[in-house]
C-alpha cells in the first residue's frame, strides 16, 4: 500500500516535471510567442528587443527554464502579460481557484445526483421506452457543444425569461464577507443568506451547462454497470433466497455497481476543468476557466503555463485519491 502510494507519487512528479519542460519549451519555441501577442504587427524591432529583454526572453532557453524553476521554488511564478498584467501567475491562480471549485462541485453534484438514480432506473427498465429515452438524452448531451448549451440556457432563462442572472458571480451591491472565496459557501458560513441566495442564483445556469457531459457519461456507466451486476450469480441467488428488493437493490446491486462509477467520477474532473474554460467564459464567471480562456486569447504564456500545470496537478491528485479510496471501499482491490 505504502509502496504503491510512493510509486504513484513518483510517477506523478515525473509526469509533472516532463510536462513543465514541454509546456515551457513549446510555448517559447513556436513562432509568434508573447512578444508578437503583446505588440501585434505594429512594434518596431527595437520595441521587440526591449520587450524580450524585459521578459527575459533573450536568454538561452535552458537558462530561462532554470530561472523559471528557481523562481517557482521561491513562490514566484512570473508576471502575467495578458490576463492581469503585472500580477503573479500564482496569485491569479489562487484568486480564481475558489470560483471554479464552487462551480465544478455544484456541477458534479447535479450530474451525480441525477445520473446514478436515472442510470439505475434505466437499467432496471432495460429496453423499455424510459430506458431508450434516457439513452437518447445522454447521447444528445454528449453531442451538444458545451458552450452552445451555455448560450441557450443563458438566452432562455436570463435574457428571455429574466428569471436568473445572465453573468457574473454576484449582483452589484450584494457583497458578502469573504471567507473562502466561494460566494455561496461564504454566505452560508457567515449567515448572510441574501448573499448566499444571490450567489446560488448566479451559479445555477453555468453549473447546469457544465453538468451535461459528466451527467451523460456517469449515467451510461451506471446503467452498463448495473446491467452487468444484475446478471451476476450472486444477485440471482439473493433473489432466489427471497431477499426484499430493497435489500437487494441497496446491498447487492448498487454497491457493487458503483465501483466503476466512482472511477468515472474521478475522470470526469478533467471534463469539468476543460468545460469550465467554455462555461465560465459564456457566463463571465471570474474563475480559472475564464482566466485560461483569456490566457489563450492574449497568449499569456506565464499564466497558461501555471494554470495548465495546476489543472494537471488537480486532475492527477484527485484521481490518485479516487484510486486509493478503492482499497477502503472494496477489499478485493489490491493496489500494487
Amino acid at each position, binding site marked *: 500500500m505504502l509502496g504503491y502510494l510512493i510509486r504513484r507519487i513518483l510517477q506523478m512528479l515525473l509526469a509533472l516535471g516532463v510536462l513543465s519542460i514541454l509546456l515551457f519549451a513549446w510555448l517559447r519555441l513556436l*513562432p509568434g510567442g508573447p512578444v508578437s501577442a503583446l505588440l501585434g504587427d505594429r512594434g518596431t524591432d527595437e520595441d521587440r528587443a526591449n520587450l524580450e529583454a524585459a521578459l527575459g526572453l533573450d536568454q538561452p532557453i535552458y537558462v530561462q527554464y532554470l530561472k523559471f524553476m528557481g523562481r517557482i521554488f521561491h513562490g514566484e511564478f512570473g508576471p502575467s502579460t495578458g490576463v492581469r498584467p503585472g500580477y503573479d501567475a500564482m496569485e491569479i491562480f489562487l484568486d480564481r481557484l475558489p470560483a471554479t471549485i464552487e462551480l465544478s462541485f455544484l456541477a458534479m453534484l447535479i450530474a451525480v445526483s441525477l445520473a446514478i438514480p436515472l442510470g439505475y432506473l434505466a437499467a432496471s427498465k432495460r429496453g423499455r421506452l424510459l430506458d431508450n429515452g434516457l439513452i437518447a438524452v445522454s447521447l444528445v448531451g*454528449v453531442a451538444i457543444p458545451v458552450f*452552445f448549451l451555455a448560450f441557450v440556457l443563458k438566452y432562455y432563462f436570463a435574457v428571455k425569461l429574466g428569471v436568473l442572472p445572465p453573468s457574473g458571480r454576484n449582483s452589484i451591491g450584494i457583497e458578502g464577507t469573504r471567507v473562502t472565496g466561494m460566494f455561496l459557501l461564504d454566505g452560508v458560513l457567515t449567515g448572510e443568506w441574501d448573499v448566499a441566495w444571490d450567489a446560488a442564483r448566479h451559479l445555477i445556469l453555468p453549473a447546469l451547462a457544465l453538468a451535461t457531459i459528466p451527467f451523460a457519461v456517469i449515467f451510461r456507466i451506471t446503467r452498463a*454497470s448495473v446491467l452487468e451486476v444484475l446478471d451476476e450469480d450472486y444477485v440471482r441467488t439473493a433473489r432466489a433466497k427471497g431477499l426484499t428488493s430493497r435489500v437487494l437493490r441497496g446491498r447487492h446491486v448498487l454497491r457493487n455497481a458503483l465501483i466503476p462509477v466512482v472511477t468515472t467520477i474521478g475522470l470526469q474532473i478533467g471534463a469539468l476543468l*476543460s468545460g469550465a474554460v467554455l462555461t465560465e467564459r459564456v457566463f463571465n464567471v471570474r474563475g480559472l476557466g475564464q482566466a485560461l480562456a483569456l490566457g489563450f486569447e492574449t497568449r499569456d504564456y506565464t499564466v497558461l503555463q501555471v494554470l495548465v500545470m495546476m489543472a*494537471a496537478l488537480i486532475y492527477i491528485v484527485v484521481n490518485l485519491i479516487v484510486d486509493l479510496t478503492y482499497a477502503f471501499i472494496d477489499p478485493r482491490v489490491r493496489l500494487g
Partner: protein
Amino acid sequence: MGIPNGPRTWAESKKKRIDTLAASAGRSGRGEGAGDGPGGPATGEAGALKGAEGVSLLAAAWRRLRRNAVFLIGAAIVLVFVALAIIAPWIAPHDPAGRILVDQIRPSNPIPQPQPGFPLGGDSSGRDLLSRLLVGARQTLFVGVMATLGGLSGGVLLGTLAGAFGGPIDSLIMRIVDVMLSIPALLMAFTIAAMFAKPTQWTVIMAIAIVQVPIFARLLRGSMLAQRRSDHVLAARALGVKQAPIVIRHMLPNSFGPVIVQATLVIAGAIIDAAALSFLGLGNPDDRSPEWGQMLGKAQEFFNTFPHLAMWPAACIIVVALGFTLMGESLREALDPKSQR
C-alpha cells in the same frame, strides 16, 4: 469473481475498455495485456465468425449491423452529410464567400433577415447563411476526419511499437502516453492550439489530433499484447516469419475492428472540439470556406439578438456528431462478443 466489468482504478479504466475492444478483434489469444479482463476468451459470435468459411470480419459485421436500427440511423445521417459535403458547391444557391447582402447591413441591423432567395438570411458579413451551411459540411467533415486520421496514425504507430516490442521501448512510450493523459484532453487541445500565434485550419487539426494519440496508442498496445502469445502469431513465428511481417501482416489487421470503432467515435468528438476552439478564438480565422464550428464561434456575439445565426450551425454539428456516435456505439456492440448473449 463478483466484480462487475468496469474500471476500478484510474489506470485500469482505460486499460479495461481497451481490453474489451481488443478482445472484440475476434481473437482468442489472451496475453498479459488482457490482465483480469472479464470477457474471457473471445468465444462469442465474433470469434466464431472469424473462423467461418471465407466470411471476412467486415462482411460478418455488416450482416449483423444491417438489421440494427441504431446503426442504420447513424449511418444514414453520416451518409447524408458526406453526400452533402461532396455535392454542396453545386446545390448551394449562392457563393458561400460572396458578400451578396452586404448593402443590407446597418449598425441598427447587423444581420440580413431571411428573404426570397435567402431562406435563412445572411451572416454578419452579408453572406448567404444557407449556402454557407451546405458548403460548411465539407470543411467540417474534413477537419473531423483529418484530426482523427492524424491521431489514429500517431497512436497506432506508438501503440504498435510499444505492444509488439515491449521492454524499454514499451516503457518509454507508455510514460509519454501517461504524461499526455495527465492533462484533461480538451484543455490540452486548447493549449496546443494556443501555442500558435496565428491559427490556421492545420493548427486546429493538429491540436485535436495530438490529444487522440494516447487513446489510440493504448488501444493498439492492448491489442498487440493480447495477440503476442496467441496461436496464429506463435505459428507464424514457428514458421520463421520475421518480427516486422508478423506485426504488420498478422497482428495489425486484427486490431482493425476496435480502431474503426474508436475512430468513428473520435470524429464526433473532433467536430465538437473544433467548435470549442473556434469559440475561444483559437480556430481558423480564414472564413472564406465556411466550417460549422467557426460559424458557431462567430455567431456568439449575436446570440442574444440573433440566436438563429448560432442555432443552424449548432444543429448541424449536433446531428452529425450524433450520427457518428450512433454508428460508433452500434459498431462497438456488433464487434463485442459479450453483447452477443
